[in-house]
């Protein structure tokens, strides 16, 4: 059921050491591209694989790399996005802490493909341990000549910096991340220009998610066609899913795209915790619209989830059972987005604050008639009107909670209390 490609060796505690990584075929793909392939051929192979961004937006990686302007004389940069802060998501961490060399190798290949000589891995600040593992991997790669000057005698130079953040979710958004690396406050930038044209230090820059880049060595070793043969027609390859919430066996699972959600929740996840009934599923990280129990057979791929009214997002599947109040869920989520808004644009900065006030008062049993409509109107005024997609991310789960569970919201206002309690004791 699981298809372990990126995660094949994550349970081997020695995989963090370069010798073990090498014994599993590590750095062969880097050697192959440096000695046998021209950068455009690497880009072509990645395009052929169809691998799409695993950070949330799902943009084809090879196509993005092709956006680097050919005639721009400025240096180019690669940034590997390991900020991983969308609630529910904890998959990049697995790769960074258990197979860090696969991330280094993927970054090195991608850097070569886009003509970069300096690559950054942006690690969320709280990930002290994954950052240490990445630092160790980078050091070992330098020692063995897979990074640094004249790599493997091919004349290609590449430096790599592990950069750690400071606990801001918005720094996962690529333009904020670039500001953060530059040493600024992590506020989003207006686009255009897109990072591929003017990114880090106003130079052409490619930002890719950890999981996206970790797939690259496999694509080079086995060919783009091999990768594209997995998954569905438009969602190729495998994807890591972080399963959390009310399931028996939460964890990270690597699945071929197109695998039914029920396989993840019931077969791998062992079904619902303590036999409670399923109420809702957040399928792609906290910002994606919720699904209902009758949608549990939806296929986990980019297109099927859009068809089902949601998104694949970062692949964080959060399972919610019948004991949960959906206003309470909405309050948790809006609190997060209000806290994490960078403050650059008014609809998001002020809108998330008002939303939190309104939703909290409903949750406290102080809601007034008309509050739901006010929330809906606020959501409508934020959606699509902000500098970066955090505004949309904040309102989507709220809109979906109201759409799917309006009776609970109304009950709250009329009866000044929850319909169901959400009192969860830890073990």
């Amino acid at each position, binding site marked *: 059921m699981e298809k372990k490609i990126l995660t094949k060796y994550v349970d081997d505690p020695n995989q963090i050491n370069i010798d073990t990584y090498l014994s599993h075929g590590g750095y062969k793909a880097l050697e192959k591209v440096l000695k046998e392939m021209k950068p455009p051929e690497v880009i072509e192979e990645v395009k052929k694989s169809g691998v799409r961004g695993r950070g949330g937006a799902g943009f084809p990686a090879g196509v993005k790399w092709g956006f680097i302007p050919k005639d721009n004389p400025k*240096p180019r940069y690669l940034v590997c996005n390991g900020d*991983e*802060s*969308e*609630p*529910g*998501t*904890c998959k990049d*961490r697995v790769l960074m802490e258990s197979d860090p060399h696969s991330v280094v190798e993927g970054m090195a290949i991608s850097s070569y493909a886009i003509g970069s000589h*300096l690559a950054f891995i942006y690690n*969320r*600040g*709280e*990930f*002290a*341990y994954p950052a240490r593992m990445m630092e160790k991997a980078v050091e070992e790669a330098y020692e063995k000549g897979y990074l640094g000057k004249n790599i493997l005698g091919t004349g290609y130079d590449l*430096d790599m*910096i592990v*950069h*750690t*953040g*400071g*606990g*801001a*979710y918005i720094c996962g958004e690529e333009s904020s991340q670039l500001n*953060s*690396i*530059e*040493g*600024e*406050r*992590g*506020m989003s930038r207006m686009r255009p220009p897109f990072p591929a044209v003017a990114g880090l*230090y106003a130079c052409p820059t490619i930002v890719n998610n950890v999981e996206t880049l970790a797939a690259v060595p496999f694509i080079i070793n086995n060919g783009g066609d091999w990768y594209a043969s997995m998954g569905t027609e438009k969602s190729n390859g495998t994807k890591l899913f*972080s*399963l*959390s*919430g*009310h399931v028996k066996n*939460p*964890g*990270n699972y690597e699945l071929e795209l197109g695998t039914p959600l029920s396989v993840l929740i019931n077969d791998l996840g062992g079904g619902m915790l303590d036999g409670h009934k399923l109420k809702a599923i*957040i399928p792609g990280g*906290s910002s994606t619209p919720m699904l209902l129990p009758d949608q549990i057979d939806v296929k986990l791929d980019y297109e099927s989830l859009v068809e089902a009214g949601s998104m694949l997002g970062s692949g*964080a599947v*959060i399972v*919610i059972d019948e004991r*949960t109040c959906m206003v309470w*869920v909405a309050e*948790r*989520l809006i609190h*997060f987005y209000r*806290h*994490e808004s960078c403050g650059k644009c008014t609809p998001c900065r002020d809108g998330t604050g008002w939303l939190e006030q309104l939703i909290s008062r409903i949750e406290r049993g102080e809601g007034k008639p008309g509050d739901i409509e006010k929330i809906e109107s606020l959501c409508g005024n934020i959606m699509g009107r902000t500098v970066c997609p955090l505004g949309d991310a904040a309102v989507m789960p709220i809109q979906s909670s109201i759409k799917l569970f309006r009776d609970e919201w109304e009950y709250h206002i009329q009866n000044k209390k929850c319909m169901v309690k959400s*009192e*969860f*004791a*830890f*073990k």
Partner: protein
Amino acid sequence: MILNEKSVAEIKKKMVRYPRRKSARLPAITVAYRQEGHLHGELYREISQIIEIPVIDIATAASFYTMFPKEPVGKFLIQVCHNISCALLGADSLIGYLEEKLGIKKGETTEDDMFTLISVECLGGCTAAPMMQINDEFYENLTHEKVDKILEDLRNKA
């Protein structure tokens, strides 16, 4: 100087790797926080001297990043994730249990300056909920017994 030799050396080592000096701001702030446990004006001044950019630029950047406390905290900063995946598995009751065990409310520090208890947003440990971070360590799949043991071990270590 408050920053010790090791911290200064670390900042300088990081600084030279970046194409622009100002990129060393967040790494330098991180080093200072790891040494001192919280950030304050004097540290900003020292960082600004090392990387040679105005102190105000250090302070504005630092103020954006909530991971670094700007007031003194206890020797052990307990940060419990209260976000959705953890909340579904009892994060609130975990906070309550810690409040009871430590005899403080969320946001407070114990009288002996040993523990500060706060709640934070998702830490990327959602599949091992409920979880918390104490200083740089993650503690996951928490149960009452585990929490008791963690606190006891920390007290013994102190």
